[in-house]
């Protein structure tokens, strides 16, 4: 005898026709399963999560301040001996911390006291600890990626959805703008604008807009174009879909149709493009910081570290660790993000889904 269930038996017409077939899994579950089936994607995901956690919890880690200059210890090789020491200024914050970071920092003081882990990845020319700079640099780099990603998400999705849904002349005009912007060497324009805005530093600061915020927004402005194109294509397809027509017949307003019917169906594509655009945003940040046009000291980012390395290296002295460790950190994270984005795209690809069912 089977256990009694609370569910009423399904009417015959609604029951699955063939009992041998497993119940269809939800699309989200299918995507996760397909993603999980790939070792490369699994490891990439773990790596990215670990890197983000490390960046997020940086104030909690017993690392020296990344900005603490000790000229006497300039260009020390990576060395594991005597790496755990107490230092009087171990608890200096690398820059003014927000309330959340202050709490983490206080927790660190309680847990580790003035102990610090130093010299594991060597020091740079000014004696600053490289490992600490890499970790704190990842924080800034990820923050840029997050802000710029959100900008690209908001602008790109709104632009694409409106153009695709409105159609006709408005669509044409909006996509022409995207085409024109895409044909520009955008990085040149961004650099030009950053240069000009640096002259307005004081006025912008009065509105609470620092150069870094301008930078975030500009980097985001570079990356929304492909998002807008993809979203428009999807929306064009969806606007003709039967369930959207049904909603319109039922008298739903345009805003309601867009928000409850169209945008949720566009989401998978948006997620894929967001994953794929994060590495390119990280690259743009590194690129601009490398040129001295992005993040400014005393803050640090991966691009700045690469630029430091390029300056420190010369035929007389080859501090290889300055090149190898930041590059390794950046390379591994970027590679993982790319692999993850590709895997996610494959997992969400409807063609593959169709092939899998057949």
């Amino acid at each position, binding site marked *: 005898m089977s256990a009694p269930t609370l569910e009423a038996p399904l009417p015959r017409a609604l029951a699955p026709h063939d009992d041998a077939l497993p119940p269809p899994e939800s699309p989200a579950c299918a995507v996760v399963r397909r993603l999980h089936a790939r070792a490369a994607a699994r490891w990439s995901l773990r790596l990215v999560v670990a890197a983000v956690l490390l960046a997020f919890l940086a104030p909690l880690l017993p690392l020296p301040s990344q900005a603490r200059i000790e000229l006497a210890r300039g260009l020390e090789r990576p060395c594991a001996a005597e790496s755990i020491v107490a230092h009087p200024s171990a608890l200096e914050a690398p820059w003014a911390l927000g309330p959340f970071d202050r709490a983490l920092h206080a927790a660190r003081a309680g847990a580790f006291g003035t102990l610090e882990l130093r010299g594991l990845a060597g020091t740079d020319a000014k004696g600053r600890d490289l490992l600490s700079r890499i970790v704190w640099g990842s924080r800034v780099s990820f923050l840029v990626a997050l802000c710029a990603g959100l900008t690209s998400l908001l602008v790109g999705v709104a632009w694409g959805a409106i153009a695709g849904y409105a159609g006709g002349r408005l669509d044409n005009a909006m996509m*022409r703008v995207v085409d*024109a912007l895409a*044909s*520009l*060497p955008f*990085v*040149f*324009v961004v*650099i*030009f*604008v*950053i*240069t*000009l805005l*640096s*002259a*307005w530093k004081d*006025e912008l600061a009065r509105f609470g807009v620092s150069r870094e915020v301008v930078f975030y927004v500009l980097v985001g402005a570079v990356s929304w174009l492909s998002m807008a194109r993809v979203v428009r294509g999807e929306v064009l397809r969806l606007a003709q879909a039967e369930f959207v027509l049904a909603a319109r017949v039922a008298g739903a307003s345009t805003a309601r149709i867009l928000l409850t019917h169209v945008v949720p169906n566009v989401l998978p594509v948006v997620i894929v493009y967001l994953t794929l655009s994060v*590495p390119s945003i990280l*690259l743009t940040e*590194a*690129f601009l910081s*490398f*040129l*001295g*046009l992005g993040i400014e000291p005393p803050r640090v980012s991966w691009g700045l570290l*690469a*630029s430091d*390395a*390029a300056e420190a*290296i*010369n*035929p007389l002295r*080859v501090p*290889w660790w300055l*090149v*190898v460790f930041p*590059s390794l950190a*950046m*390379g591994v994270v*970027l*590679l993982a*993000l*790319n*692999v993850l984005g*590709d895997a996610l795209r494959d997992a969400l690809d409807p063609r593959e889904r169709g092939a899998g069912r057949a």
Partner: protein
Amino acid sequence: MLPFLVRRLAWTVATIFVVVTCAFFLMRAVRGGPFDSERALPAAVEEQVRARYHLDWPVWKQYAAYVGPLNLDEHRARFLGGDGADVFGGVLAGDLGPSFKYRDLTVNELLGQSLPVSLALGLWALVVALGIGLPAGIFAALKKDSALDVALRLGATAGIALPNFVIAGFLVLLFVFAWPLFPVAGYGGARALVLPAFVLGLPFAAYVARLSRTAMIEVLAQDWIRTARAKGLPERTVILRHALPSALLPVISFLGPAAAGILTGSLVVERLFAIPGTGSHFVNGALNRDYTLAMGVTILYTALVSLLNLAVDVAYGWIDPRLAAGRSANQ
């Protein structure tokens, strides 16, 4: 074809015009002149300097002089008059004005010195991208799912993911310090260009390899390739004469973005290897607030990239007549 070309050309010109206009007014809107940071000049000298750069004119006149619908330069013959006068001045006549920082030079002179260097670097990078990317993609497609294919695919993912200054760092450590084959930096001679061209070209080689591999696999599965094989053609001919031209299409359409990317990448590579190209000038101009120089390079590269995109589109229609037909059907 012709209406399409005309329309695209008009669109390109309009884009450049908008860029010039926005850049000009942004530049003028910035508070203070480019000479503020220096020590205070005597009033008379400052007046002279402002007059030399036409900063004493009303903005509309400065704009007209910069863009150049009217030739307002008093050192040349007047508008529509005089002996063999230029009708246009400013950008329309290809004159990007004086540099604000290098006082003795015009932007044109600076670009004249540096552009050949950058173009040489960019062309070699393109050669690297195609020379490595195409064979890699084709071999990977022919030996699909072999160890070679997997290795090449991994390499391509790494090449796309890594920024070029990271690749540059490793290459310099390897081929300059560990095994001294190339000079560390500087410009002069072909040997000095090898490393920069590789650094600049490798990411695009990775893209080209990916594109050509996918296209080649798709083409090789077509019926007409089977027909060609069934006719008894040698495999070489099937691949090179029948499959390759079709597989090249996505690579060709990638050339436009690739050229833009190479120009952008040259900013970093020129700085890394101390190459006196346009990219270094642009970055220095941006850092020194040399607005005319930064603006000149922006305009020049915008024009260059737009024209390249146009050329790629035209070439694409020429190679694949179906597209051209589709385009005229749309009109």
